């Protein structure tokens, strides 16, 4: 039973499973170590590029005015349990699918020379990761979502644990345990929801009224899982460790896509399915968001490791996202989504920037650099652009999301807007301080004298990210138009649900 969708072919399944096909080819690669490594790189690159091209159908054919799921595919799977294989994208998820397919080829390209051992397995891990990410963002069945959501952990765990830095085992274990712990609670939530609704179809779950008490517990269970993934303060400490030990491309995917899973979960499940609990817990979420912004921005100021600094800045940026989501107004949620996409591009680019000099000098220690502007003008320019985007300069992607969240937060309270935007000041401080120590100053370290500027391959990696950052900043409506309708509908549903609950009689009826 397959529904034919707008594209006329199962575009989502194809995007999801094309990378797995690439893995199959990789598995059968003949030849010696060097030859298979070379072939593996090319196969992985072409596979991921092909997946990206297929996913572009979504960009072209997506109906911007519709709020519901599009490109829906349904195959009956476990009908007696109400479980099916269902894929589809709406305004919230479509851009994340594209973000995943766009970043994967860049990651493969960025690993071209950096990874030299077990190249075949490395490339396979990235392709599996892509399958999991795309599957997660396009699943419209909770069980399917859960499988992909957990499945993402495994290749990422391997990427950090096998190809990572010296403390990779500690970092990967911490990463796995932290993120897995919450998952157990989400599984419980899944069972509870399935028990009441009799199905795991997300579209049905959205219409299923859960009692206020049940919403309360479900929200906490989801929170346990999503808060770690975001990551929210105070469960963020796995992130700096994971980033520090991960290979460059691992960090890129981790920051670019995996950090969006938590916030995506909030938007997909917590807010629309549990409106009362979301409303109830919003003040706490604001508090945690504000603490994340100020606390982690300050911590970033003290970092001496480039990757740690950017990792902490990610936590601060995701704090802004959380604030935006729980404002329950269009500007706030639009801003949160935009900030997620922008952060996906910009933090990915910043980790790539670190990777460029790490590949040359093999240290992430900020104090080991200085004065690179002399020898690497192109690199300095690119790094400056992404620094400014991270600070949220208007005209770059970082500004739009942050400002929309500010406007959204203002409708809740002036103080939330003011403190939630403190990253504007602190972000400028830690990013410019980082930039100054790495790029500016006198070039006095002997091993930096011969450092080379960006190679054509590296330029090719950065070019699309540069274009995206400016495009997002100068012409953001071409992106917001994807999710504006969905978000408006979501906000309206939320308001209605909350208002309904305020009327006592109806509320009593809905608890049965």
């Amino acid at each position, binding site marked *: 039973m397959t529904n034919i969708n707008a594209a006329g072919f199962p575009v989502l399944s194809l995007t999801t499973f094309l990378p797995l096909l690439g893995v199959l080819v990789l598995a059968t690669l003949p030849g010696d170590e060097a030859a298979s490594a070379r072939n593996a790189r090319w196969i992985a690159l072409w596979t991921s590029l092909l997946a990206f091209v297929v996913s572009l159908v979504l960009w072209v054919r997506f109906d911007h005015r519709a709020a519901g799921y599009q490109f829906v595919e349904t195959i009956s799977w476990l009908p007696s349990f109400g479980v099916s294989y269902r894929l589809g994208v709406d305004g919230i998820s479509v851009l994340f699918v594209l973000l995943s397919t766009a970043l994967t080829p860049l990651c493969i390209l960025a690993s071209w020379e950096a990874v030299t051992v077990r190249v075949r397995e490395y490339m396979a891990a990235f392709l599996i990761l892509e399958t999991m990410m795309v599957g997660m963002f396009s699943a419209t069945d909770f069980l399917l979502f859960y499988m992909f959501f957990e499945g993402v952990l495994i290749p990422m765990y391997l990427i950090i644990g096998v190809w990572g830095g010296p403390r990779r085992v500690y970092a990967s274990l911490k990463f796995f345990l*932290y993120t897995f712990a919450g998952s157990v609670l989400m599984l419980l939530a899944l069972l509870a929801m399935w028990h009441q609704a009799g199905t795991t179809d997300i579209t049905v779950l959205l219409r299923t009224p859960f009692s206020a008490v049940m919403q309360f517990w479900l929200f*906490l269970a989801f929170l346990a899982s999503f808060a770690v993934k975001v990551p929210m303060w105070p469960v963020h400490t796995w992130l700096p460790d994971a980033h520090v030990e991960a290979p460059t491309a691992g960090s890129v995917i981790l920051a670019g896509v995996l950090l969006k899973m938590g916030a995506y979960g909030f938007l997909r499940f917590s807010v629309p399915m549990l409106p009362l609990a979301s409303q109830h817990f919003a003040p706490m979420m604001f508090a945690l968001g504000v603490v994340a912004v100020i606390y982690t921005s300050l911590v970033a100021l003290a970092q001496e490791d480039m990757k740690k600094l950017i990792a902490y800045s990610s936590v601060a940026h995701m704090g802004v996202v959380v604030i935006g989501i729980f404002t329950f107004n269009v500007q706030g949620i639009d801003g949160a989504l935009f900030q997620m996409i922008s952060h996906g591009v910009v933090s990915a680019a910043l980790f790539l920037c670190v990777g460029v000099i790490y590949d040359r000098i093999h240290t992430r220690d900020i104090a080991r650099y200085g004065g690179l502007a002399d020898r690497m003008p192109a690199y300095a320019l690119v790094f400056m652009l992404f620094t400014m985007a991270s600070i949220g300069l*208007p005209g770059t992607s970082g500004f739009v999301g942050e400002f929309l969240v500010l406007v959204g937060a*203002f409708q809740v309270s002036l103080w939330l807007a003011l403190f939630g935007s403190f990253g504007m*000041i602190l972000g400028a401080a830690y990013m410019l301080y980082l930039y100054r120590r790495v790029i500016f100053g006198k070039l006095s370290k002997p091993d930096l004298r011969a450092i080379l500027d960006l190679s054509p391959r590296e330029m090719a990696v950065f070019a699309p990210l540069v274009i995206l950052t400016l495009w997002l900043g100068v012409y953001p409506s071409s992106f917001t138009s994807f999710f504006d309708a969905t978000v408006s509908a979501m906000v309206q549903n939320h308001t209605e649900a909350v208002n309904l609950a305020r009327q006592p009689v109806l509320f009593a009826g809905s608890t049965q």
Partner: protein
Amino acid sequence: MILAVAVFAPLLGSVACGVLGRAIGDRPAQAITILCMLLASVCGVSAWYEHIWGGVGTGVSQIADWIDAGSFRLNWALRYDSLSVSMVAMVTCVATLIHVYSVGYMAHEKSTTSRFFAYLSFFTFAMLMLVTADNLLQLFFGWEGVGLASYLLIGYWYDRPSANRAAIKAMVVNRVGDLSFAVGIALIFFSFGSVNFETIFASVSQHVNDTYRLFGGEIRSYEVIGFLLFIGAMGKSAQILLHTWLPDAMEGPTPVSALIHAATMVTAGVFLLSRMSPLMEFAPHARDFVTFIGATTCLFAATVACVQNDIKRVIAYSTCSQLGYMFMAAGVGAYQASMFHLLTHAFFKALLFLCAGSVIHALSDEQDMRRMGGIWRAVPVTYVTMWLGSLALGGIPYFAGYWSKDAVLEATFAAASPVGTYGFVCGTVAAFLTAFYSWRLLLMTFHGTPRADAHVMAHVHESPVVMLAPLVILATGAVFSGWLLHASLIGDHNDTYWQGAIFVKQGNHVLQQVERTPLLIGLLPTVTGVLGIALAYWFYMFNPALPQRLAARYARTYRFLLNKWYFDELYDFLFVRPAVWLARELWQVGDVQVIDGVPNGLASMAEGGSVQVVRIQTGSIAVYAFTMLIGVVVIVSLFLLVR
């Protein structure tokens, strides 16, 4: 259309120069930017002429849509009215002159200067976007764009640690103001449902009595908006409390100081208040605050300028002080006078900075006035033009500053409010100090016995024509601009100039009353100015030992002024050190010991009880899950208790 050319030509020049600069070499890159700037200034001036005298009406040209989020919609668009065309004409002309001047000034640079010209042109573009914006967010785009350009140019000599420090300081201090500005924009959207100027101005009268809950009371929204926007303006225009970045910004090359940190960017805050005059008019308390801060800055900066020894720092504090005058005028409702002072100030302050640059150039990069002196014969053009600039700044009759400064002071007097009188007193005292420090600078720089070493003195030379021509042009402006413009800008028929771009509410007659101020009041700034000049002559020409004696006698006061009222030390103590300390503590104690300590501790306990690898791992999964649960429970119960 010609306005769009004026705005985007500098961007074109900047991108071309930045991208191709290394490939095509320095000279062609400079030529490209200067040609683009010339085109921009021709278009800018003709746009101004057409609008003011050619009868081309106010308008908006849409470029593209920008942000669409629910009801939050706005476009990229250029606004065409008296305010924007006046600023465009001024910015493009001054910027062009400074581009030309830079060709000479940067000629001794060892590395390529295409980066410098690309930054300068980018700055011009951002400034033009700021002044032609049709909505607050686009204005904010320009606002942040000029901030970026300023950051890049202050830190242009990136191998100097002091330049880097100053650049970061400028950006971060400005961001404090920007945060307030951004929140102000959010409040405007909250009140008006739009951030477009047309929409806001059209519905100002409907929301006059709107209130906003704050600090447990109801405050009129307009007052809150006024305060928030002005704090933003304080950052960009270096008003007291947020002024500390401007003197440090003198680390940048001197043309940058002239263009960005005197003539154009720092006046953006003044422009903002004039632009928002329809709203500011209904926020009297916020305007009183504006006057108060402006007046205080005006006096404070003038006192500091009197004892500084770095030639550029003196002019930087002078800029602070003059910006204070502009805010004073805006605060009492004489926006026309504040814009007038902004425009004349652009000429003579850019001129003074460029002259200073010429002096520094002549003296082999010496900036300390204690090692200058006795060079006026060697640099006649610089000397004469700097005299003219100082006459304009000092408010000597018929020079540009006289017209505008008088108008400002008379407006504060005519306002007849306590804060207006405070402004008048501060402004008059500052006028005395202004004349004093200007002639102190002239005398120390050009007259007396040469204090530079013989090697430097042997090299003293007049600057090349490419640097002198801009000086002469700007000097012409410094002499005549006030005389030429005062009737149109602040005269009885100023409505025909402004054509509604500046809104003055009914009952605000400050500008008309200026005409009727008593003669004595009108003469006061001139008299104090002349006295200031006389005092400077007495101190530095006829009795050169006196300043040192005074400094030794009143050592405490002298040090207080020399150290700029200890603002930097205070902020270091209040903000910088605590932030650095907090950053380390939160990281090392908060993250490493507390947050990581819990799971690590539990894990090591589990580890201690077992030697088998398998059990360690399964054990710690349970511990982690359990910790998470406990964490959630604690947070939730805390939350419920607190509610």
